[in-house]
């Protein structure tokens, strides 16, 4: 079982996630795209762990998951707070610092 297809899939998913972050306007969907990018990185880490034959890559993927969980909790709480004050979940509407 070769490793390159896994890495290519990981790169494709990462790219799709990045394009999603840049193009979508709903803050929740932007967050989902960030999660997609993190997941793509995890796939690459697990694949490289298999290539090298040790478990360090899997430990790294595990840490990425932990950090992603913490990030989602705080991020969604921020989105909720912004929605409560500005009645909108669009990233364009949070532009008070601009003026």
């Amino acid at each position, binding site marked *: *079982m*070769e490793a*390159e*297809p*896994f*890495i290519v*899939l990981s*790169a*494709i*998913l990462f*790219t*799709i*996630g990045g394009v*999603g972050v*840049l*193009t*979508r306007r*709903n803050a*929740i969907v932007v*967050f*989902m*795209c960030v*999660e*997609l990018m993190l*997941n793509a990185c*995890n*796939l690459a880490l*697990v*694949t*490289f*762990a*298999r*290539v090298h*034959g040790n*478990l*360090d890559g*899997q*430990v790294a*993927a*595990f*840490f990425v*998951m932990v*950090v992603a*969980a*913490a*990030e*989602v*909790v705080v991020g*969604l*709480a*921020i*989105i*909720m707070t912004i*929605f*409560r004050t500005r009645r*909108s*979940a*669009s990233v*364009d509407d949070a*532009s008070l610092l601009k003026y």
Partner: protein
Amino acid sequence: MTAFWILAPIMVLAALGILVVRKAVHAALLLAVVMVSLAILYLVQDAPFLFAVQIIVYTGAILMLFLFVVMLVGVDASDSLVETIRGQRALALVIGLLFGVTVVIGIAQVSVGAIAGMDTANADGNVQGLAELLFTSYVFAFEATSALLITAAVGAMVLAHRERLVPKPSQTDLAKKRMRDYAEHGRHPGPLPNPGVYARHNAVDTPALLPDGTPAESSVSRVLSARGTVKTAPEVADDVVALVERDNHSTAGARPTRAASPASSDDTDGEEVR
């Protein structure tokens, strides 16, 4: 490898779907597809612990959190199509495509060499091996993780907590307010009217009719009128008239015997609606 070739197209399609679907709920469900498929790919690559964690933490916890927030923020809070920076969407697509092509070509030119496989690393079991690494070489990172998690939990609680600025109105206050509204603005102090119940429509989205024939706006839920799904009484009446006419047309030639009876019964419906 079979699992990979089956799952990879599904994952790419689902990920592309996240880019184009309008509703956040659909994006969350497509993300769930990607995450469960990723979990299976972990299992294929001899990472059973990560397979379980991926399903429990990502699909079970994080996606449910996403769905909760989507429900709180409003299911119909879809993307606005207005571009604040002109040409940003097209530019982002072009740059993303360039990036993707560059990375894929770069990877295609690199050879990862002989694959060692996980047989020796997983000899004592995957979970045991991971635990040994976590609690020896990565023990400081592990400790830092615990600090990160407790900070995130406290941060989320602080951010989501809403300070009460005014005291909560008691039942006495509410009753007094109702009577004051009645005295000052003539607002009815009793319960709101029921939605309309007609021969063909007895749903909550049809307003009741006042004696003079105008719809009672307060008889339907505020949420339904905000979504714009409320049927108006004249609309319902037109609906009936159109139905009667269609019935007359379709059955006039073929089955003339049936044309009379539905028309007459629908006429009474229309009568009632008006």
